[in-house]
């Protein structure tokens, strides 16, 4: 068994493509830990080098997980934002100014979002649950974490429907409209989105209850996850960047 990989064990008759699938990935626990590190790093850093280093490492992590499209997409968004901020530094126009302030904030939280995107797109709900269970995390903590993971794609799906619906109703979410009446636009997206999500949440919990999610029995798992060399390497690299950020880049 290759270390650092998840080996999907299959002891039944192999009738499906599932038998002995190798996926190159970091342990879900490591990903959660790195997410925390990235979060703190981007919060305290005020050094462009540190930021670039952080983005570069997340990109490498994405490439390692074979999420090539995700990597390219995020790099493009980040360079676009950086370029806009750079170009508009000396422009004195209210709308452009507002936009650059928004973008500066977006840039600050961008690494966290980028890593979260990687975490969600490369971790299965079952893997996350089982790896957290392996370190004896109580259900009360595991289940909310997993539910949050489960909800991101749902938000994406629901938003598609809402944006379409708004377009049909003649409400256009163009950049100009967003700047002109931001509160109205937020209302038109958020109100239906929250309504939909609360319905989904209730139905989902009801379904989970009928599948024994409340059970007192010790939960088992389809997967066996374990730490490998890549977990250590990635953790060390991201931690080094955190220390770099703490010292203000003054090494």
């Amino acid at each position, binding site marked *: 068994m290759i270390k650092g990989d998840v080996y999907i*064990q*299959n*002891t*039944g*008759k192999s*009738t*499906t*493509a*599932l038998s002995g699938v190798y996926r190159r990935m970091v342990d879900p626990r490591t990903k959660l830990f790195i997410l925390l590190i990235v979060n703190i790093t981007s919060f305290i850093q005020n050094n462009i080098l540190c930021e670039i280093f952080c983005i570069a490492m997340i990109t490498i992590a994405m490439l390692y997980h074979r999420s090539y499209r995700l990597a390219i997409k995020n790099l493009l968004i980040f360079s676009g934002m950086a370029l806009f901020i750079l170009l508009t530094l000396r422009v004195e126009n209210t709308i452009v100014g507002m936009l650059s302030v928004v973008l500066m904030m977006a840039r600050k939280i961008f690494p966290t979002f980028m890593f979260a995107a990687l975490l969600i797109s490369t971790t*299965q*709900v*079952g893997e996350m*649950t*089982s790896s957290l269970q392996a370190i004896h995390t109580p259900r009360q903590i595991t289940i909310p974490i*997993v539910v949050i993971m*489960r909800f991101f*794609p*749902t938000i994406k*799906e629901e938003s598609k*429907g*809402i944006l*379409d*619906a*708004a*377009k*049909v*109703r*003649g*409400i256009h979410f163009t950049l100009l409209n967003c700047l002109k009446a931001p509160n109205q636009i937020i*209302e*038109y997206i958020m*109100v*239906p989105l929250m*309504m*939909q999500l609360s*319905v*989904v949440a209730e*139905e*989902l*919990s*009801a*379904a*989970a*209850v*009928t*599948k*024994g*999610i*409340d*059970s*007192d*029995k*010790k*939960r*088992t*798992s*389809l997967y*066996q996850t374990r730490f490998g060399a890549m977990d250590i390497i990635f953790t060390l690299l991201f931690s080094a960047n955190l220390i770099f950020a703490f010292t203000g880049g003054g090494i």
Partner: protein
Amino acid sequence: MNNLCAIKMKNVNFTYASRPEEGLQDINLSVQRGECILLTGASGCGKTSLTRIVNGLIPHFYEGELDGDILIDGQDITNWKLDELSMKVGSVFQNPRSQFFNLDTTNEIGFGCENLGISREQIWKRIHKTTADLKIGRLMDRNIFSLSGGEKQMLAIASAYALGPDIFVLDEPSSNLDAFATNQLRVVLQKLKQEGKTILIAEHRLYYLADIADRVLYMERGRIVHEWSAKEFGSVSKRQRIDLGLRAWDLSQVKIEPRMNCDKEMPGISVERLSVAYQKNAPILRNISCAMSKNKITAVIGRNGQGKSTFARCLCGLTKENTGKVFFEETEQPYKHRCGRNYLVMQDPNYQLFSDSVIGEVELSLRSSKKEKAVNALEILNFLSLGEFAEQHPMSLSGGQKQRLTIAAGIAQSADVLILDEPTSGLDYSNMLRVHVLLEKLKEKGKQIIVITHDYEFVMNTCDCVIEIKGGSIADYYMINMEKKDKLLEIFVKT
């Protein structure tokens, strides 16, 4: 043990803590092992509540006041622990989008077993047994969001099946399915029945259960008011069935309803050599040309994934065509002008409501001056009999009222064409008739109506002509008449 009933209820009453008007009253029911019971009745009649008692969601999840004796597999409900009950009773719900906890299919099938602490080797064995028994190997290892509605319901059954329950409880499992998927559902239910499973199923769509159900129970205001054996139910007169608001049991008995005859065609929306592709994928619609008459209600039918909804999205200006043209009343309608003029009424009206009051919802779409707005809005609401709800919050309306409100918004933004996506899914006969009356009224007002539908009864009742979409092109386009009836029935039942 063998002579015990699978489900037994004696003088059961239940009131929801949150909605005291709904609940169950004086339910007496005993279901033998291996029996299939079909629960039917109007929305809010209590059939869903009854299924919730059997799977333990009442009173554990939906709180309220419950009394009476309930025995599941001979054991009093108060003695069942909810997690043990989930190995005895498997549940399938109405909405496929919200019943999966995992994001991939294999994990979802194993999910219940994991929760109940079954060993890993055992879980894999069960997953393989489930996929073999239900013949769903093709669904393994897929992303949940890539499944069709029908596949999702199969998966829901499979994930319940993996826990090895003797009793299956299904709450309107077909309401989001097309005719083809409904037939697949029928096959799986037949298989469960052969295995001797007890099935309790709440449904509006009845025909697909004709060979499976042993008894039919009709509920009204929380009570069981009629009970038939399947054979007796087959001979219930059409008159009585319609009085009870029930859908057809045998689709071949459904007749074409006579309608106002207007032979003269009026030019409405038409398309010429239309092709649509998503990004660089193969085109979904290929070179479609057809002209739909303005004064006819057109049904767009065909299996899911064949291009129906892409066609509708393109007409509404949500998806841009690659080549081809769209015309309305013989003038070309470019892509940008279509959105809003050709108004899409989505299957789930909740997406389309944005305002905090019913009248505000209509005013949002009106382009007149402020003074006129209130008057015009009220006029439109009255036209759709929503006037009395003007000040209410849209979310406090019933499903049908919400649907009418989204249509009201369409009229307010002076749409010429209304395209309705599955307006009758999950509706009983009386509500289907309401939609029928509404569409007739809109037609009279001069709106062109196009309906995407899987509902054979509705097509027979309301629609004037049919566009059949298959593999991205128009397979057939015809008026509904006696000659075409058999062909249509074939499409809806035998696919």
